[in-house]
């Protein structure tokens, strides 16, 4: 994938993800309601490709205002990834040379890969994750499960063990998918299903929309390192 194509595809998915987040803020309280309206307008401009540098700068300002407003991310990891994708795309536009443009996008590809790998690493080094107990606790104790029915999954220890190891193995092996284009595509499909499952079980819908915004960049990055 060409760099320009990757950036454009990424911007389109990012615009949809920001529109989704903005519409949720519009249903909330002030002042985030107003910022949601501004974010929605900017998302539309980004979607149609109107002045991406200015629009991304505007979205970065909105993101900083919301960070300040909530004393940190409103929605944890999904806010971090949203800002990271936005910042790296913005930097790729204003980069003084092709080299720095690739550094900005390469950093996003690294963070996407690392988001899976680090998450897997901290799980495999934790005995409770290795035994399936941690996932049982996530479902039984935490406030994340979306329904009482979802909590019942915690009553199947064998299923919890299998699911824990499936997630750990996938997350740890994700960086190896960079070695082959088709393996990477398959891994991104699996990753999307993983985010969909998290959205269904834990209501983490924003993760489902924002992580794929970085996928075109990692596809470009993979073709870049293979060529090198």
């Amino acid at each position, binding site marked *: 994938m060409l760099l320009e194509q990757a950036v454009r595809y990424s911007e389109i998915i990012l615009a949809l993800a920001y529109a989704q987040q903005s519409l949720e803020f519009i*249903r*909330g*309280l002030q002042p985030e309601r107003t910022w949601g309206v501004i974010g929605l307008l900017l998302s539309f401009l980004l979607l149609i490709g109107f002045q991406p540098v200015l629009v991304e700068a505007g979205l970065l300002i909105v993101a900083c205002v919301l960070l300040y407003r909530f004393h*940190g991310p409103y*929605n*944890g990891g999904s806010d971090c990834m949203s800002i990271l994708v936005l910042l790296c795309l913005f930097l790729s536009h204003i980069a003084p040379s092709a080299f720095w443009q690739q550094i900005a996008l390469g950093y996003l590809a690294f963070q996407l890969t*690392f988001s899976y790998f680090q998450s897997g690493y901290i799980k495999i080094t*934790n005995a409770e994750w290795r035994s399936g107990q941690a996932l049982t606790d996530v479902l039984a104790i935490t406030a994340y499960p979306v329904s009482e029915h*979802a909590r019942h999954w915690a009553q199947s220890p064998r299923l919890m063990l299998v699911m824990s190891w499936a997630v750990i193995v996938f997350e740890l092996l994700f960086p190896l998918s960079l070695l082959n284009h088709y393996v990477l595509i398959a891994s991104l499909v699996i990753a999307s299903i993983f985010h969909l499952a998290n959205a*269904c079980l834990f209501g983490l819908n924003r993760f489902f929309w924002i992580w794929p915004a970085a996928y075109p960049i990692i596809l470009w990055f993979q073709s870049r390192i293979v060529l090198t």
Partner: protein
Amino acid sequence: MLKLILPVIFPSWRFFSSIGPSPRIHIAFLQNENAEPDNWQAFRPLPAKISLKNGLRRLLHNPEWNETLFINTCAERLFEGYSVMREQEIMRRILAAIHCGEIKVDKAKPYVTYRISAVMREGQVIGQQVTFVATPVLISAPQQKGTA
């Protein structure tokens, strides 16, 4: 501001690294600000089940759930130490839920308070302990939507 931005630019992706105490929020209505709460009710209890249609809708648009996750984050911060902002942020959203009719109010009890319990596993037993009780607040007249 830099303290807020740096962890976003150099994030740590330690999702569910350890399962610590998890917050549960209950609210109670009071006759006056010094009254003892006698009827705690869960704030936004979980539905028994979510249909496929609702699941798809929530995938696209779920402002209430994401607000609840933010409230839980505020409650977790209150486990670590008191913060006026966090206490008020939770109360503000409970008041908004009351004003929009999500929570029914007993008109004889014009004050509302909330408590945060920490749910945790100790060995094979799951326990719950109240860690914080908010200052009661008078429920004022409903404000315009979006300005609560």
